[in-house]
């Protein structure tokens, strides 16, 4: 058995705590939104008092109504600012797009970051290491709106090989995915490089090499398995950052993802939509942290036995 009963119990308690955390998040968000100045149905052209009263009658809800709706029926209610759509419909369309964008970017970030980290650790002191490190520095320093606009300028307007914006067809997805992954490639390279270098000097690697194991096996079986833990630890927050940080990339490349609702719903005082986005993001964050914990346990028996 991989997981001990004690470990399973620990996971169970964490799930319960996560549920509690979520309720606290919803309650706080609800309270903050209600306290914020500005009214959802206030527009530049003042609606007449009678119309305003009707809108409130139709769309308003109390804290308990909301909580009950979510818990019992999974009802996220109607959006205030997109009047004919439910929050569920809106996010149901946007979430897969953000997930696709985010997971592709993360995948590239992990693959490229690990490769660059490994190579720069193996070829220490050579020109290659300098190249990787400067690249990593650039990745961390360049904001995505600059990189995105630059890529658009070069690939779409100058060479005309990709569309400027949109999210249909793989050609349109290349630039946003690269833009989004760039900074994470850099982070993962730095983390992986540090971890690889640390482990390369360990006795077990020397032993493995001394007993004549092929280098590929040493790297794959021994080095990678031990060095990847910090990268996996970083993946949960990275996935969360990537998902919640798609706003800028979505805007530049006009991608119909979740990011825009994160900000727009708050500006519009679209309470149901804002709460919906917060709930989805929170669920995602809590789930990822739990998952990272489980994956770490699977890879590293030492954690399992504790």
């Amino acid at each position: 058995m991989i997981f001990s009963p004690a470990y399973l119990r620990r996971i169970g308690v964490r799930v319960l705590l996560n549920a509690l955390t979520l309720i606290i998040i919803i309650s706080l968000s609800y309270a903050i939104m209600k306290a914020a100045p500005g009214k959802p149905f206030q527009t530049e052209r003042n609606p007449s008092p009678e119309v305003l009263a009707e809108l409130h009658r139709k769309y308003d809800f109390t804290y308990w109504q909301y909580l009950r709706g979510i818990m019992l029926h999974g009802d996220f209610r109607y959006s205030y600012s997109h009047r004919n759509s439910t929050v569920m419909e809106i996010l149901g369309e946007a979430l897969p797009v953000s997930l696709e964008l985010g997971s592709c970017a993360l995948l590239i970030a992990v693959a490229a970051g690990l490769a660059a980290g490994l190579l720069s650790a193996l070829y220490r002191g050579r020109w290659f290491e300098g190249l990787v490190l400067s690249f990593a520095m650039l990745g961390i320093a360049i904001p995505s709106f600059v990189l995105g606009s630059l890529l658009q300028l070069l690939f779409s307007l100058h060479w005309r090989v990709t569309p400027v914006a949109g999210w249909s067809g793989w050609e349109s997805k290349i630039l946003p995915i690269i833009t989004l992954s760039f900074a994470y490639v850099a982070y993962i390279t730095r983390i992986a490089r540090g971890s690889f270098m640390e482990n390369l000097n360990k006795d077990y690697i020397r032993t493995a090499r001394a007993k004549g194991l092929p280098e590929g096996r040493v790297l794959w079986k021994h080095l990678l398995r031990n060095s990847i833990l910090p990268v996996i630890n970083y993946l949960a927050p990275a996935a969360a950052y990537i998902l919640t940080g798609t706003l800028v990339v979505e805007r530049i490349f006009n991608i119909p993802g979740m990011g825009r609702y994160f900000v727009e719903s708050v500006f519009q005082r679209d309470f149901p939509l804002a709460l919906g986005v917060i709930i989805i993001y929170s669920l995602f964050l809590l789930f990822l942290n739990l998952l990272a914990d489980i994956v770490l346990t699977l890879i590293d028996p030492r954690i399992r036995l504790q």
Partner: protein
Amino acid sequence: MIPAFFLIACHDGSGKGPRPLTIANGAEPASLDPHAMTGAPEIRVAGTIFEGLVVRGIKDHHVRPGAAKSWDVSADGKAYTFHLRSGTKWSDGSPLTARDFLKSWRRFADPATGSEYTTLMKIIRNADAVREKKLPPDSLGIAAPDDSTFTVQLLFPVGFFLDLCAFEPFSAVPVDTIAKYQDRWTQPGHLVGSGPFRLTVWKHNVEVRVEKNPYYWDSADVKQAALTFNAIEDQQTAWNMFQNGEVDWLFSVPPSRLETAKKMPEFFNEPMFGTYYYLVNCKNPGYDQPDLRKALAYAIDRKAIVEQVLKGVVRPATGFVPPTPGYTGVGLDLYDPAKAKEFLSKAGFGPGKPPPNLQILYNTTESHRDIAQVISRMWKENLGLDAELVNYEWKVYLENTKNLDYRSIARASWIGDFADPISFLELLTTTDGNNRAGFSDSAYDRTVKESWTLADPEQRMAKLQDAEAILMDRMPVIPIYYYSLQEMRSPKLQNAIPNPLGQYSWKDIYLAP
């Protein structure tokens, strides 16, 4: 090593047919229900799928027959009888009759529908009482004595009523379909329209696509097969897409690109019926004096703002009402530093004794900030006054101006609902819901009120001009510039002729091959 849920395939998108006329429509339409619309993006789409009794003209600013083939106006100008075409159909092929207009307009007037434009109906008999729930919607002053006749009883003999009939909320909407599908009626497949196009695709935050409606009465004259309204919020992205030929028509140019755009043949710049102005809080001490308000107004060099900040694509204001056909306007030169100083001392203020809390409130946007900075410098130079700049995010700004919860000055703008001066002048009457200056002047109220009763257009316009003259003498609003349309258009775009409000007659527009 990689958790399975990250491995969502990056699949290929949809197939491509011949490209329709593609429009960068700004924000995602909030709704396609003509009675739930609030902004330009949804009004544009609604204009393609719904049609009113009349449609906007493209040769001149007079409306043309739409669902109604002709109409009669009574001698007193207050009763309209529309004669509908026979055989007009909805986009599902079912007959469209005068009764549909009856039901649509009642729905529009009903406060339960929650339309922000309901107040436009107030010129129709009993509309106010219906809105205030004192009378049921079926007591609205409209009738459909038979399938092809629709009559309207107005309270006032106002000619702009016909322009209103071309405005999308006055279109026929499928009330039975709405009853059947409730909030889901605007989805493709459910939505039944009356316009030259019908809704085929609505992908949220991506596009709304409409295709030619074969049941439209004039479909033989509709040249464009399909239109796509892309939801693109970022102006720079839209601009890049236009440069790359991905969209044919942009409704805004990023401010940083205006200089470039102005030199391009694709740039389209036309006056528009809108004013950018500053509100003065007339309820606050000091600012309740017209002389102080005029001092501030006359110290603003509008020409400099237009040239330097706005790259010369708009016109300096010479009154509150933008120029419009049939209305001369007050045509004032509102920049005169000597006069401004005079007004200031008459009000009892000066550099040594500044008015209390001089502050410019604006909603957080770069261009508003730039203008506020320039104006505060002009007040400093011409009047020796220091103004504080304060910005709030949009919804807070709206709340504060609506409740007169601002110290002295607040930035504002207004686009007329119809091309008539009353659309502006009514704003500053004492009881108007959009009077955000707290202005109340009995002579002004009376003059505006009198204009409603005049059937003769010339007399009416003269009366409105008197009202505007009073307004500019009291100066509760400080006009700054008149808006303009700033578009980028493919050279192939044909018949895209805006009315003064920047609205289009969609049935005529097409992309030349």
